[in-house]
Each structure stands twice: as structure tokens, then as C-alpha cells.
């Protein structure tokens, strides 16, 4: 293996400053695109991963007819069903919960109905032994998640909520007429949790009852009905008696619009989800973690395609300019190659030297491209940080990989011209002198 005079390579590049610079720019443009797109994809992938953790950490049950995307929430999930699901093989725990829209519907302002995932209150049963498997790993941007023992009036919010409502940490905010304190804001996940307000289940139930005239009156009747003794009840007409019986049976704790199911350790969550699906297909819809995970993976695959596309673009733009420059350099340096060969340089040595020169050009272009990319990313991220929507992730390992990539790109593009140089007939080179 020959050690090549790096100084000679740098001097050769310096002697042709203008052309070298042009080539470096050519590569830098490609590498710049690669850096920026890659950093964006890394960020998106990370966000998506956060959402995936939440979604795949539990089996979610909703009453038949629920359309998650359109936000048609509100149908009730009977407590009986939840209790029965609890008995299904492999199920560890089931908890009821309430999902309801954050804002009171405003029929006068249809614009308030937005596309995508609507702002949702997620009632969390903090006392249950049910655990979303990846719950603790949800990343918080600020503050913390609500937990058992917290007062009823604290909430944690998703990043989209924080952005849209301009709610900040420690803010006192009004939701459906009640005041809550924001104690945590989640990292962006590019999925459901971004539009969630995490609230204690008790508070959510109260808001839910408030929003539903039927339940509201039932609750009011219940207080009165409780004071009616069995003997008094027996003396009432049947219709009235039924109504009071219904009011007496009403329990706030039984109110659920959705259920979360966790599975026992070592059990395949997909099997559990399928079992629930089979047994309760007329009553509920089941969102299985694996299916949801696969959907999300499809989205990440898209992101990775973006990275790959960026890399290919960089490869194309960069290598053409390297190949062009190297061919020019080599035809200019025919004489030099002839001299070196007459001094006893092997073909290998000549080829290596030119490939290395191309590699140096690649690396310089890479450094420039990465430099400009990082600069842009930092500026953008700082700007976006104010709105809480940074879209780039600066990852040192990735940047290093890009730099190595640009070196390899230079070498690869330089190989053909380098071999051409090495194979040059010395006589021809010398006779041209």
C-alpha cells in the first residue's frame, strides 16, 4: 500500500482553485440537500415513533360506529361489555375511558370542524392497574404526564393543542366551562396524541355528563331517587318506578366511550385483539396494536424513501461533477502521469492517487454542504422553536455518516477516471511532452 502525499493532492487542487471550487460546490449542493432532508426525516421518524409507542402500547376498544378520523365520539360503551372483555383469554386488565371532543360543538361555525384528528379530551383512569405498555416512555417536551394522586384539575396536552390553543405550561385554561391547569406538554408525535388533552377520568366524566342532556337529567334524578325508599317505590306507578329504577342504577363510574385493554406478559397482543374482535364483533371495534404499528411503519418507510431519494440526488449531482473534473485533471496531467510511471509508479499507485484526490474533493464538498445544511437547520429550528414545531433533528452520527458518504462518493466517482489514468500508455504520455 502506498502512502500518498496528501500535500501534493491539496496543492494540485489549489493550483486549479476555480475548477476545484466549482466541483466542491456541485457536491456541496447534493450533500446539502441530503443533510437537510435526512435531518427532517430523522425528526419525523422520531415523532412517529413516539406516536407509535402510544398506539401500540394497548388494544383500544370503541363502540361500534365510531369513526376516529371524523371524531364521531360520544357513543357509550356498556360497562357489561368491558367486564366481559376482561374475562377474555390473555387480557390482563381493561379500563373504561372517555373520549370526547375538546370544544363544544358550534353549529353556527362549521369552520370549527377541521379535518384530521380533532382535538380530543382523553379521560385517563389514573387509579387502575391498567398500564399502556409504552406509557412511561412517551416523551414530554415540558412538564410531566398526569399521574395518580394529582388533583382533578390538572391536564397534560399534546403539541398540536398547545400550538392551536396557545396554551403554555402552568397556564390556567378553560375547558367546557371548567378551569384546568396545564402541567405537561408532550413532544410532537405526528399522530393521535398530538391532539389529546389528557385529563383525569373523573373530571372527564363530569364534563361528559354536562355535555349530554339525557345523562345530565339522569344524574339529577339519581340524587332524588336515592332518597326514595324501596317501600315508597313499590307504591308508585310502573312507568315512574322504571324511571326511578334506571336513575338509581346510574353510576358515574360506569360511563365509558372507549376501553383500553392490556395483555398479559408473554401473550401475543394480536391474538388477544383477534379474540376480542371475534367475540364482540357486533358491539365493538378493536384497534389492534400490530395493525396500527404496521400503518405507522408504512409512513416511516416513506420518510426513509425521502432520505434515500436525497442521497441518490446527491450521488447523481455530485458524481457527475467529480467525474467531469477528474477527467479534465487527468487529461491535463498526462505528462505528470508519464513522469511518475517512468519513475516506477505502479498502475495501482496512480489509480489510488487520483481516486484519493476525488475522495478529498468529495470530502471538502461534503464539509461545505453539511456546514450550510447545519446552519440552515439551526436557524430554522430556532425560528420554529417559538411555535413548538421544530422539523429537523441534528444528529451527530448522521452528519458523520453523510461526511463519510461524501468521501466515498468522491472515490467512487473518481474510480473510472483514475483507472483511465493508470492505464495510460507511458510512451504516449512522454511523446506528448
Amino acid at each position, binding site marked *: 500500500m502506498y502512502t500518498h502525499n496528501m500535500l501534493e493532492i491539496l496543492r494540485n487542487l489549489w493550483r486549479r482553485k476555480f475548477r476545484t471550487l466549482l466541483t466542491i460546490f456541485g457536491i456541496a449542493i447534493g450533500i446539502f440537500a441530503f443533510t437537510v432532508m435526512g435531518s427532517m426525516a430523522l425528526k419525523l421518524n422520531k415523532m412517529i415513533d413516539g406516536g407509535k409507542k402510544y398506539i401500540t402500547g394497548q388494544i383500544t376498544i370503541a363502540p361500534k360506529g365510531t369513526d376516529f378520523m371524523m371524531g364521531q365520539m360520544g357513543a357509550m360503551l356498556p360497562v357489561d361489555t368491558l367486564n366481559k372483555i376482561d374475562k377474555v383469554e390473555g387480557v390482563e386488565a381493561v379500563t373504561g375511558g372517555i373520549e370526547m371532543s375538546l370544544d363544544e360543538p358550534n353549529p353556527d361555525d362549521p369552520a370549527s370542524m377541521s379535518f384530521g384528528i380533532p382535538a380530543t379530551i382523553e379521560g385517563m383512569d389514573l387509579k387502575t392497574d391498567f398500564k399502556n405498555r409504552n406509557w412511561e416512555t412517551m416523551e414530554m417536551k415540558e412538564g410531566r404526564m398526569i399521574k395518580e394522586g394529582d388533583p382533578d384539575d390538572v391536564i397534560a396536552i399534546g403539541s398540536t393543542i398547545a400550538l392551536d390553543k396557545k396554551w403554555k405550561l402552568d397556564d390556567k385554561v378553560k375547558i367546557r366551562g371548567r378551569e384546568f391547569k396545564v402541567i405537561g406538554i408532550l413532544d410532537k408525535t405526528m399522530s393521535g396524541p398530538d391532539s389529546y388533552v389528557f385529563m383525569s377520568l373523573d373530571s372527564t366524566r363530569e364534563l361528559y355528563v354536562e355535555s349530554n342532556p339525557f345523562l345530565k337529567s339522569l344524574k339529577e334524578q339519581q340524587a332524588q331517587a336515592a332518597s326514595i325508599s324501596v317501600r315508597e317505590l313499590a307504591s308508585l306507578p310502573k312507568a315512574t318506578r322504571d324511571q326511578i329504577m334506571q336513575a338509581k342504577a346510574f353510576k358515574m363510574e360506569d360511563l365509558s366511550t372507549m376501553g383500553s385493554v392490556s395483555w398479559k406478559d408473554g401473550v401475543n397482543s394480536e391474538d388477544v385483539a383477534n379474540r376480542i374482535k371475534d367475540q364482540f364483533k357486533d358491539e365493538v371495534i378493536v384497534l389492534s396494536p400490530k395493525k396500527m404499528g404496521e400503518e405507522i411503519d408504512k409512513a416511516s418507510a416513506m420518510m426513509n424513501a425521502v432520505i434515500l431519494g436525497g442521497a441518490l440526488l446527491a450521488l447523481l449531482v455530485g458524481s457527475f461533477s467529480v467525474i467531469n473534473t477528474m477527467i479534465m485533471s487527468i487529461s491535463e496531467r498526462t*505528462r505528470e502521469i508519464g*513522469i511518475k510511471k517512468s519513475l*516506477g*509508479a*505502479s498502475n495501482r*499507485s496512480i489509480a489510488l492517487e487520483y481516486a484519493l484526490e476525488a475522495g478529498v474533493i468529495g470530502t471538502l464538498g461534503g464539509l461545505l454542504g453539511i456546514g450550510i445544511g447545519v446552519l440552515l437547520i439551526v436557524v430554522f429550528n430556532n425560528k420554529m422553536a417559538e411555535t413548538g414545531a421544530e422539523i429537523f433533528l441534528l444528529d451527530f452520527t448522521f452528519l458523520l455518516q453523510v461526511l463519510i458518504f461524501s468521501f466515498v462518493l468522491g472515490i467512487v466517482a473518481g474510480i473510472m477516471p483514475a483507472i483511465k489514468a493508470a492505464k495510460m500508455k507511458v510512451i504516449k504520455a*512522454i511523446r506528448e*511532452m
Partner: protein
Amino acid sequence: MKNVIEAKGLKKIYKMSKTNIVHALNGVDLNVEEGEFTAIIGPSGSGKSTLMHIFGLLDKPDEGTLIIDGIDMSDLKDKEAYKLRAKKIGFVFQGFNLIPALSALENIMLAGKYGGMKMSERKQRAIELLKLVGLESRMNHKPNELSGGQQQRVAIARALMNKPAIILADEPTGELDTKTSLEIIELMKKLNREDKQTFLLVTHNMEVAKDCNKIVEMRDGKRVS
């Protein structure tokens, strides 16, 4: 005396087209003894350079045998040729002999690298050689900062780097003025006298050729004397 070069019946043909065939060498015999200073003269196109390239292992004859420093080159592979070239042969060409990006010292050291010399040794020997050709004060100059005569001195120093069996100089003074030419030839003669360095020199100048050990005259690819 030992022969550094033993060539017999060397032929080289260039086929330009079916009808146009150039016999660049048409059966050349030549022996060069160790320590000799041999001059080759002859008109342009007589095959002098072709002969030098074959001796320098840069080209192969179509016919004939060649022994350099006791090694038969008949079935030499390209892969071995460059190593032998680095160790046995020193070249000085007509002009623009040096690598522009490298200083005088680095140009000389480069030959040491290809000759397999150790890094530490290279610099020391290169400086010695620069002293020998009287250019130690210019060792960090680039070729374009040196005169034509100085460049050829560096080229001669570089040719000496690996202590070659022979130095092949193909019209080394072709682009120099008369005075400088004579200085360069005198340097080579001095190296021949004092260090017994074997030289094979191609020249147009009969003055230069006159006091050489041997004069070989070429015409139409053949030796005429």
C-alpha cells in the same frame, strides 16, 4: 567488463494502416558496458527514442532479446516492469521533466518512494543529491520557479535517486541554450567520471558526442556505426 545492456536484433513495428507500416527499429544490436558513457546520434525519426523506451521498459520490442543488468526482459510482465524500472533505470527527458505541484526536493524524494526507499532515508539522500547537482539552496522551489537548466539538474538528481544501473537521457538539452546545455552535459560526464554512473545519451550535438566512450549512429531504425 560487465554489460548493463545487452540488446540483440531488436525490432519495433508501428502499423499505422494496412499499407503504412513504420519499422521504427529494424534489428538493432547494442551492448552498454558498466561505467560507460555512450552517445546515440542520428536524424529525427531514426528510432532513437523508441530504442530508449524499450531499454527503459516503457515499451516492448516485437522481436529480439534484451538483458538489463543480467535480467532477461523477454517475458517480463507489466507488473514486474514498474518495479525494475524504479530500481534499475533513471530517466531524463527533453523537457518538463518535473511534477509541477512538487518542490525540487519532493520531486527527487518521489523517485525514492517508488524505489521502495524508507521515508527517513529519502529526504537525506535527496538533499545529498541536490548538493551534488549544486541546487541545495533551491530545494523548496517549485519547478516553475527554476530555470530550464536547473530543472534538468533536478531531473538528473532524481534519476540518480535509486542508484540505477543506467541513466537514459533522451535529448536532455534539447530545449536549453548552448551554454546551459554544455553545463548539463558536463554534470553528467562528471557523474560518470567520479561515480562510475553508466549513461546512455541521445543527442543531436556532435560536439557533445565526440568525447564519449562510444558513439552509436542510427538511421532508419538501424545502427550504421
